[in-house]
Every structure is written in structure tokens, then in C-alpha cells.
């Protein structure tokens, strides 16, 4: 897992993506631009965050979930 550690906490790159979602960004392209991470890593990372329940996916866009918000408080 690249964005979520085995203990369920987001990694540094995962935290960057969650903070970008918190700031209202939703598309992988916007998040890649904001975080400076390569687009392929953001696409893969958002998928992983969604699978872990830290983000919610709707088509090609993502939103921070309640569980994700808890972790970056």
C-alpha cells in the first residue's frame, strides 16, 4: 500500500492527497497539480484511499470521507 500504512493511517503522500480533497479539489489532475505528485501516483493513490474508506469516489472525482477527515484532523 502506497497511501495507507498497514496500521490504517495515511502515508505522507496519502496525507497530501487527503488534504487536497479537504481543500475541495476532486479530480486526479487537480490533485496532482496541487501536490506535485505524478498523475499516475495520484490516480493509484486515490483509488487506494477510496478502497480504505478514506475517500469517496463518484465517477472520475473524489471527495474526502468522514473517516478520512478524522485522520487528518
Amino acid at each position, binding site marked *: *500500500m*502506497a*497511501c495507507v500504512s498497514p496500521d490504517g493511517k495515511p502515508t505522507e503522500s496519502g496525507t497530501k492527497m487527503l488534504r487536497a480533497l479537504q481543500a475541495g479539489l476532486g479530480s486526479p489532475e487537480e490533485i496532482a497539480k496541487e501536490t506535485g505528485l*505524478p*498523475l*499516475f*501516483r495520484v*490516480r*493509484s*493513490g486515490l*483509488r*487506494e484511499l477510496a478502497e480504505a474508506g478514506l475517500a469517496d469516489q463518484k465517477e472520475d472525482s473524489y471527495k474526502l470521507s468522514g473517516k478520512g477527515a478524522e485522520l487528518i484532523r
Partner: protein
Amino acid sequence: MEEVREPIAHMPHIGEPAPAFEAVSTQGVLKLEDFKGSWLILFSHPADFTPVCTTEFIAFSEIHPELQKRGVELLGLSVDSVSSHIAWVRNVQEKTGVKIPFPIIADLNKEVSLSYGMIHPGQSKTETVRCVFIIDPDQIIRTILYYPLTTGRNMDEILRIVDALQTTDKNKVATPANWRPGDMVVVPPPNTQEMAEERLQQGYECVDWYLCKKKL
């Protein structure tokens, strides 16, 4: 006793869509579609902690900034585990100071290797040979290179091919032998007799109607 053979896989061709994959890598689970919109160089190496592969990984890392300027991502692959890849890249950094910036697929079940024809039993039945697949932003395979286990790849040639492909796409031209950025390019040959006659009047540098070059 009959020899156990790997299933015969389809060998991908230039001009075909790159085979889709979902694979564990040193940077998480990656799908081919994650690279859509970027150029991608997918390359395989025989094994971690081997000498030629180590020189290649250092060389790929050295051209990584140049590839990034051209909108190209790098993705390595071998049939080793993620733990092996992590240990190897950490060792390379510790011993040489070079940080490997790109992900490496751990293709333990050979799913990706077989779909890309990376295992050549005449060289090794268990390891991938040194393959390079240059894949465009629409995920079409544009170039395939195969090197034997004993020959490390030439990074200048890989960069040169990327430059040539991108120049070709942008300007609808071809590139002659040993072309380098800044050199003259080849104008596509005429399709009709009328076009052939006109071609010689168009101000290009022509050997004859079928071989004309121009500056970009």
C-alpha cells in the same frame, strides 16, 4: 519426461494497444490506465541485485529528469518481489547515492511479463529479458526493444527514440538514420505522380522525388 513450458503468450506489436495490467509495484498498485495521457516507458530487467541491471537502473535514474521534461514516465518490472525491489533500490542508494525515482512492478506471477512477451525461453525460462516498450499517451505501443541478458541498454538511444516519436507526431514527418533533434527531417513521400513532380519544386533538400528533407 515432457518439459513444462510457459503458456504461449501473445507477443505485442508496434501500433497495437498496450496490454492492460493491474500490478503491485514499489509505489503501490498500478494500472496501465493510470498512465493515460503521459508517455510511458515500461521496461523489464532480469533480476534485482545483479550487476548489469544495477548499472541500467542508475542510468535510467540519470535520464529520468530528461524524460520528465518530455512528459515520459518510467516503470520498471521484474519477476522479483516488492520486498526484493525495495531492498535493492535502498542498496543502490546506499552504495551509489542514486535514488531510484520510478516504480518497479513485482511480477511474481509473470502475468504482465507474459502479456508483454518479456520472457524469451531461449535466454531464460524464469527471468524477463531486457525489454523496452515505449507507449504513447493513447496507450498505443510505439516502439519495442529487446536486449539480451548480457547487454545493458543504451539510454541515449531510448531518449533519441522518444524525441523522434514526439517530433514525428508533432510535425507529421519521419526521421532519417541517426537523426538527432535539430537535424533535418524526412518529408513523407508523395503518393501520386503529380505530387512527385510538385515535390521537387517545393524548396526541400531532395536527393530525388522520394527522398526530401527539410529543417523544422
